[in-house]
């Protein structure tokens, strides 16, 4: 009842458009969120906890549409009531009229966003891809694409750093990996670049294939596979097949796979070129040292040695760093330039990003959203020395049928890491992690937070000098 009554809140359209914005205007995601709110009896006013509505043009139009619907409803409702009738008829009119508002708003947004999505996919997105294809048909530089369930942005930025040390390189900015982002990127080019690096998104089935078909890459890197976005793809296999469609567009010796990804390895042939923690492109990794200040190691090939000093944290960074450097060397970048370039790459916001708080070291990995990343973060915590280790997580979203298995695996790694204190944000995954920790005999302290935002905002009260705190993943407002 609270949910339906909240449609009469003056800001109801703003809350609804915020929900749409958070699920990237996907009808399925919006519907799922509406279901959660109705099932848990939460009002619309409860949705905007972590962020605010970003006032993009699209958002403003949709909010305007919502108020338009409300205005129309007010007019029609008034006219209907003024038509008069017996008390019983009036009662029925009032009841139906009141119900009409929430139904109208929800249906309007479903229809508009759904149709717009279809139109976008079939027209706008197609046009953007066509634009990219036409531009690149006559382009003289080399095109590199980066695909994968995780680590794409990191790999793109590493390749940009190492190749830029000697060549003219441009890359899509931030984590822009949609046709619109690619088209905007192309429009920004000067046309004399040696290399272009594109990050490919996998928002819906067939995305990677469509991108590959438009961009016709010279090189491709697949950074790993994880059970993400399984609310879009039916299965891991469907996701893998989309990634592997790159084989049709890129020569075998120009296609590189992350060998550390256990799921991806199942789809990779022995003849495929892989990179991992042991090395890349005939370069071997030696003398690894991990700390809160970064990851250091040496690349060796025959008599050649290159010392890597990266500000990125964790052993899982070794493979992409090694590949980025080895690939740059393959492309003719002088050795020392490629190695020094790594020092210019710093952790990205909320991705294994170190900072200090009240004398404690925080590693903020709250934008991590995949199993491999979670496991990598836990292994990093295991590697580091601290007076007290604290691990904070709500678990992972969007795991679909894999939810049980994934969270049991997370719990296994937590038990192996043995932090002194585990803080679990209360949600649908908590029980899975808790029961697995109990089964494994984990002896550390486990506490539960029902208000994640309040906990993060007051984290300084919980930590002290000598602590290392790993915060992984943060459930956005649309997950419970």
């Amino acid at each position, binding site marked *: 009842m609270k949910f339906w009554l909240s449609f009469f809140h003056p800001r109801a359209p703003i809350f609804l458009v915020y929900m749409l914005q958070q699920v990237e205007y996907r009808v399925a995601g919006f519907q799922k969120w509406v279901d959660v709110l109705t099932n848990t009896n939460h009002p619309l006013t409860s949705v905007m906890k972590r962020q605010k509505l970003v006032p993009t043009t699209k958002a403003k139009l949709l909010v305007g549409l919502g108020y338009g619907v409300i205005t129309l409803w007010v007019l029609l409702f008034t006219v209907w009531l003024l038509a008069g009738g017996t008390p019983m008829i009036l009662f029925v009119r009032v009841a139906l009229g009141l119900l009409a508002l929430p139904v109208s708003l929800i249906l309007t947004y479903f229809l508009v966003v759904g149709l717009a999505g279809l139109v976008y996919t079939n027209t706008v997105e197609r046009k953007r891809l066509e634009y990219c294809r036409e531009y690149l048909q006559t382009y003289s530089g080399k095109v590199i694409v980066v695909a994968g369930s995780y680590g794409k942005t990191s790999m793109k930025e590493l390749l940009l750093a190492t190749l830029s040390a000697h060549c003219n390189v441009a890359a899509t900015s931030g984590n822009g990996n949609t046709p619109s982002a690619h088209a905007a990127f192309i429009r920004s080019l000067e046309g004399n670049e040696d290399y272009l690096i594109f990050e490919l998104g996998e928002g819906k089935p067939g995305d990677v294939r469509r991108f590959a078909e438009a961009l016709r890459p010279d090189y491709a890197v697949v950074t790993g596979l994880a059970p993400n976005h399984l609310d879009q793809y039916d299965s891991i296999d469907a996701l893998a097949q989309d990634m592997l469609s790159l084989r049709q567009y890129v020569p075998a010796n120009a296609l590189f796979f992350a060998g550390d990804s256990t799921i991806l390895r199942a789809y990779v042939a022995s003849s495929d070129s892989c990179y991992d923690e042991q090395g890349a492109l005939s370069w071997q990794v030696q003398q690894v040292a991990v700390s809160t200040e970064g990851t250091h190691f040496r690349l060796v090939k025959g008599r050649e040695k290159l010392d890597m000093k990266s500000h990125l944290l964790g052993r899982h960074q070794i493979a992409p760093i090694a590949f980025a450097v080895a690939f740059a060397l393959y492309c003719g970048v002088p050795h020392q330039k490629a190695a020094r370039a790594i020092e210019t790459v710093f952790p990205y916001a909320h991705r294994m990003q170190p900072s200090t708080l*009240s*004398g404690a070291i925080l590693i903020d990995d709250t934008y991590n959203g995949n199993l491999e990343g979670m496991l990598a973060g836990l292994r990093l915590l295991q590697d580091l020395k601290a*007076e007290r280790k604290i691990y904070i997580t709500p678990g992972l979203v969007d795991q679909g049928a894999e939810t049980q298995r994934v969270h049991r695996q997370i719990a296994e790694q937590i038990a192996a890491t043995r932090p002194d204190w585990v803080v679990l944000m209360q949600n649908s995954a908590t029980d899975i992690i808790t029961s697995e920790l109990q089964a494994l005999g984990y002896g550390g302290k486990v506490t539960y937070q029902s208000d994640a935002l309040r906990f993060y905002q*007051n984290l*300084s*009260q*919980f*930590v*002290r*000098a*000598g*602590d290392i705190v790993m915060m992984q993943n943060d459930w956005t407002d649309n997950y419970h």
Partner: protein
Amino acid sequence: MKTVAVFFGGRSTEHDISIITALTSIIKPLELTGLYRVLPVYIDRSGNWYCDERLSHISFFRSKQFEKNLSQVKPIGVKLSNGLTLLMTSRIKQREIRVDVAFPAMHGTYGEDGSLMGLLEMAGVPYVGCNLAASVIAMDKVLAKQVTQTDNIPSTPWVWCTAAETALNTDTVIARAEEQLAWPMFVKPAHLGSSIGISRVTNRLELRNALEVATHYDDKIIIEQGVANLVEVTLPIMGNEAPRPALLERPLTTAKDFFDFDTKYLQGGKKGGKAGGKTAGAQGYSELPADIPKTLYDRAIEVGLEVYRSLGCSGTARVDMLIDSKKDEIYFNEVNPLPGSLYAHNWRAAGVAGVELVEKLVTLAEERHGILAKRTRIFSSSFLQQF
């Protein structure tokens, strides 16, 4: 769930500082432990007592409508029989809330000076921090030096006088100071903290003026000899029978540039910008831990603990010391029985998180109360039969 009442505000020049101590370093972490029901009990400058959930938020006190908002909160009563009970009245009925543990956060007069502790001891409720006796002694700079002197804890040379004596014959006071002390001297109200009414003086005229200033604030004045090659340090300590020190901290000042109230609280520390890029502590910038030779550091810790024991402190307190860095001599300066913001920043650096600090202090309060409760204080006698 235990009910912990946090008392703050009060009829004191440090009223506003008390609000910050209570809200940021006590109420918030107590709530975050999830172990207590926390009641904010605010005492306004006129001495009216209030208890309302709204008083847990700084926005209430910073609002331009503060007076109006406060007038909408009903003052409470207090019952002291068999414990401490807060009496809250509404239009419909009166509610009584029994307090399991009291957490004083009232700096200065009518709070930290033992007034509140006396009330709480009368009520027989466990309370956090120094007890009545230690609070009274610690808040009187003269008494504190007299007590520590008997335990052979060194202080810089000092004399004291009353406001009445100063009013009657300032010259006698000045002569006594000149006879026993060297310039520069520091003139301080004996009972105030937060550097209020303090003057540094280098000649008779300045001393005369400083005495007049100090007597505006207090009826007892202490005059202390300054320390050459000065290094000021402070040490938060926590515990009852087995006190534990935090880290020795050095506020970044020079002998010429001591903290007055504005510098300490309003400008974020040292005048003219930060020094050394060190920690911004509760009272501005400081070196944490103090960067002094290890032997001197360890001795300062020992002196601090000796002072804590000598004054009978319990719960928590902060000991300020002065070091002559050339002679390696450590002098006891003063004790703060209720450190501002509990000096939580120092405890964090020493390995005690905010939530752990308040939880530990509550536990210490209950332990002390438990021990005292076992003491026999009441016994029957036939004394009255004689009359």
